[in-house]
């Protein structure tokens, strides 16, 4: 049996520290958005179920445990929710024992009670997660405002035989606090900790503190959901940190993830609070935004997939050439820089999850979360700096920017735009030169001939960075010498590179770029002729259009046998 600061063991009864005969049974799940952890606490006078979770199987398991211990000694069941989100309570509707008012008393903070009684699809997240909710019976409203700080104990008796004493105390650790005692059992201290949701509570029983979703409240995909409140979250965390600092709590039981020590919890809460402070202006995360974010994840991932495949391919190519040159040691080390197999696995898992979302098995929010997870891992998987010294650095930079853009969007922020006036003709000329001329000149290579290390570096870069337009006939024409328009320079240059790659990649032999005016509108056309790839495919137009909008323009495209044309239009208003 664990004790002291040892974590609790899952699916086993064990003593509640500092709480006499009370025992706790933790049901710890793999972290997901479908169902929370559940915790059972039994005392001689009652059985307390904290968060039945969101899955019928979970409810059935909990109910069978409850039936077993009620068989040993009949006691009322008190079901408490740390908050009214479907992943924490939906299971309660699926088992007759949990739904029977003669056995189970249902307790929740009063605003959560209102959400459940009215089947509020927004606040309960049923809308976001595609679940159905029906009105629920609430027996005991916790932390009722009408009784706030009344101080006088209130004794109530319920249909399941429970006699409950409720005492609303003054603020404790700066948090609204209420103490509940069932029969002669240990007190249950309830703290109002809104932020993740308006009704979030933390529950202390002896040395255990049940904290619901406080630790994940600032996470992307959760920050901004209906009922989320940044300032309240920051205050709630301060209160719980104060409570932890007073001592006496030996284990912290979260709604998702493993049981934690108080020290780990305090450290993690500090990080959550720091993250929350940065979340000013985070957009509301509703079903529409989840759908948009999921679509952006899909588009980004398709491009990330292509960029990573090309980068890995480039490294394999460089490795192949070095091997041919007899530099076997260098050749063998190169593929390690991008860990292609790990990346392929990540991208495959995202592609297969996307197919499941399209088939209706998961909601869009799940794809947005999966995108965040995969992108986080990708960011840790490749050696950006080393790669940029060997292969085309714009490939690496664009991959970084894509991963960063998705992370920003996923967190609920708008992508930054740095719109300023630039001469489009100058930008285009410079970019075309960059894509035509080798990064190292023949003179550079000759000059390094006596320095083996420098020569090796230049050779690798020269093999790895073949200019995109090296084998293509490019014609640039402009109606006027300069063409100043408001544009986000970096994003415009990224867009241009994607478009040129699209044309070169599909075999264009000649590319023509033309700039001019059409009334107040500035028009850039980029055409490719002699394309040999079969029609269709190419970069999704939705992705290119989004990038063009962020650059400050709009994009049209058309395709015919052997040719492709893109038209970018810029207005004149900043």
């Amino acid at each position: 049996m664990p004790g002291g600061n040892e974590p609790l063991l899952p699916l086993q009864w064990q003593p509640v520290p500092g709480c006499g005969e009370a025992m706790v049974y933790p049901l710890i799940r793999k972290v997901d958005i479908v169902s929370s952890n559940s915790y059972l606490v039994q005392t001689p006078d009652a059985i307390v179920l904290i968060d039945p979770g969101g899955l019928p199987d979970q409810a059935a398991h909990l109910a069978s445990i409850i039936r077993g211990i009620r068989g040993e000694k009949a006691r009322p069941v008190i079901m408490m929710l740390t908050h009214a989100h479907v992943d924490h309570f939906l299971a309660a509707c699926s088992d007759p024992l949990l739904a029977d008012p003669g056995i189970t008393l249902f307790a929740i903070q009063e605003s959560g009670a209102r959400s459940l009684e009215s089947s509020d699809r927004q606040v309960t997240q049923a809308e976001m997660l595609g679940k159905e909710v029906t009105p629920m019976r609430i027996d005991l409203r916790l932390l009722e405002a009408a009784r706030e700080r009344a101080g006088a104990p209130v004794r109530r008796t319920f249909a399941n035989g429970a006699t409950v004493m409720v005492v609303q105390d003054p603020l404790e650790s700066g948090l609204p606090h209420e103490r509940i005692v069932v029969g002669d059992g240990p007190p249950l201290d309830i703290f109002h900790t809104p932020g993740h949701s308006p009704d979030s509570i933390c529950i202390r029983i002896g040395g255990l503190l049940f904290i619901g979703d406080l630790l994940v409240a600032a996470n992307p995909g959760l920050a901004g959901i209906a009922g989320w409140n940044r300032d309240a979250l920051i205050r709630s965390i301060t209160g719980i940190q104060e409570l932890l600092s007073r001592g006496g709590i030996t284990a912290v039981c979260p709604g998702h993830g493993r049981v934690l020590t108080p020290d780990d919890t305090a450290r993690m809460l500090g990080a959550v609070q720091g993250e929350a402070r940065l979340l000013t202006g985070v957009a509301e995360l509703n079903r529409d935004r989840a759908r948009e974010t999921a679509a952006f994840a899909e588009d980004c991932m398709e491009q990330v997939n292509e960029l990573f495949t090309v980068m890995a391919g480039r490294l394999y190519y460089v490795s192949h050439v070095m091997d041919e040159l007899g530099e076997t040691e260098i050749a063998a080390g190169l593929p390690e820089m991008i860990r292609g197999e790990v990346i392929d696995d990540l991208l495959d898992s995202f592609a297969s999850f996307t197919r499941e979302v399209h088939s209706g098995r998961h909601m869009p929010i799940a794809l947005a979360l999966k995108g965040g997870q995969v992108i986080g891992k990708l960011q840790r998987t490749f050696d950006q700096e080393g790669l940029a010294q060997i292969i085309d650095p714009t490939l690496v930079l664009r991959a970084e920017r894509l991963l960063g853009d998705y992370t920003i969007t996923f967190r609920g922020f708008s992508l930054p735009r740095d719109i300023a006036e630039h001469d489009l003709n100058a930008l285009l000329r410079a970019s075309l030169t960059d894509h035509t001329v080798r990064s190292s000149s023949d003179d550079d290579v000759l000059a390094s001939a006596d320095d083996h290390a420098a020569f090796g570096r230049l050779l690798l870069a020269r093999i790895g960075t073949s200019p995109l337009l090296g084998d293509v006939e490019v014609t640039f024409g402009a109606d006027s010498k300069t063409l100043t328009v408001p544009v986000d320079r970096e994003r415009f240059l990224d867009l241009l590179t994607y478009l040129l790659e699209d044309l070169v990649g599909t075999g264009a032999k000649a590319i023509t770029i033309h700039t001019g005016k059409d009334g107040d509108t500035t028009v850039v056309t980029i055409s490719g002729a002699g394309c040999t790839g079969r029609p269709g495919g190419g970069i999704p137009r939705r992705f290119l259009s989004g990038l063009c909008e962020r650059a400050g323009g709009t994009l049209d495209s058309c395709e015919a046998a052997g040719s492709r044309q893109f038209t970018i239009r810029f207005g004149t208003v900043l």
Partner: protein
Amino acid sequence: MEITTVTRGNGTVLSLAGRIDTVAAPMLEQAINRVMESGSRKILLDFSGVSYISSGGLRVLLASAKKLKNTGDRFGLCCLSADVLKVLKLAGFTSIFSIYPSEGEALAGW
């Protein structure tokens, strides 16, 4: 991924259908190796049914090209979709092996 192997003249054509992902790439490598073990040194991969190639797939193509570089050997790809052609071109692979618009055009020169 489905791989159909057919002998055409003095070459062998492997028609591929599906995604060349982490699961399919080793299958493709084994199929190419089996053809080489059977004595055929002129191999054409027909990509008509391939919509996606992973970096693992690129590695298999490169490894195969490396094994088929003796005088008289041939290793080529035909009927590439725009997306796959683009990845091969940007990765620099088009200078390592031959790419043909159709099976007929590839085999005509073999």
